[in-house]
């Protein structure tokens, strides 16, 4: 392992030193392929982000794949109804590792303006490990681009080895997430306790 000081000294002299880990993460971070997957009006902003004006291609994330087999990133763009939630989780399960989730917009984060509705899931993070959340209703394409950049930072800081390595490099952590089923009143289970860690608010 090379020290940061030596690395920057060498870089000043025109010698670039890197590690396998950095190289791997650099490649991964700059080719995040999202899934073509829109649920509501946020998807319109997502489309705009991939078009010429906002040009998501600058971040290597313009290749929207129509099949989960080829996608790295799921952008949950819009309101997730309880009818749609099992399908979203199932599609996420069908994506190959490593995979990431961006919850785009107020609805995907918390249910948004439809939070009190009987049929709206109150946040995709109840079932999926959301990496980046974008507030907004809908968020502007710049916000999505910022989320992609945030995700890129996250990917670049992931470790290849060690106990804190990400899920896709750890054989002990299963890749599948439990798909909820329709119960008589609500989705069952109503949340995945393995991924949903709401903050404790003491009153």
């Amino acid at each position, binding site marked *: 392992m090379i020290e940061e000081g030596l690395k920057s000294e060498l870089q000043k002299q025109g010698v670039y030193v890197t590690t396998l880990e950095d190289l791997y993460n650099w490649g991964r971070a700059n080719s995040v392929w999202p899934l073509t997957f829109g649920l509501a009006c946020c998807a319109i902003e997502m489309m705009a982000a991939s078009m010429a004006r906002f040009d998501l291609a600058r971040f290597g994330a313009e290749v929207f794949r129509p099949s989960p087999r080829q996608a790295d990133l799921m952008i949950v763009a819009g309101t997730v109804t309880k009818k749609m939630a099992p399908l979203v989780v199932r599609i996420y399960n069908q994506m190959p590792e490593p995979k990431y989730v961006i919850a785009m917009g107020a609805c995907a984060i918390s249910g948004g303006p439809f939070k009190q509705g009987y049929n709206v899931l109150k946040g995709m993070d109840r079932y999926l490990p959301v990496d980046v959340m974008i507030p907004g209703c809908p968020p502007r394409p710049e916000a999505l681009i910022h989320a992609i950049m945030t995700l890129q930072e996250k990917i670049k800081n992931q470790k290849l080895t060690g106990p804190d390595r990400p899920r896709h490099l750890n054989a002990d952590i299963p890749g*599948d997430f439990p798909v909820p089923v329709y119960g008589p009143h609500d989705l069952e289970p109503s949340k995945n306790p393995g991924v949903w860690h709401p903050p404790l608010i003491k009153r």
Partner: protein
Amino acid sequence: MPTATSSYLVLLLLAGAAVGFAAAPLAAAWAWAKFFSPNKPGQDKNAIYECGLESKGDAWIHFRSEYYLYGIIFLVFDVETIFLLPFAVAFTGLPVGAFMAMIVFLLLLVEGLVWAWRKGFLTWN
């Protein structure tokens, strides 16, 4: 001859390099998957991709092959129309040979129509 041998050796080296260029990324990907990235198959992941829904039934279903008959009968009228219009436009200036050729063509198509009619394919069922 030494010169001829060495020139072929270059070709051999280039061929080796070309194969290596194609095979090295595949080998690297294989080695990476083997040493770093564990395989994580799952019930959902191995299932057929169908927009998140569980696929129902079998993919090996019977299609009605009779449909091709309707396609062919449609073609009879379609092709007939295409040729009939220029035939009608140029009708007065046509020589006898061209007229006969056109009549034979029409008779062939009409024969097909009569065959389909007698077989009962014009009745929708």
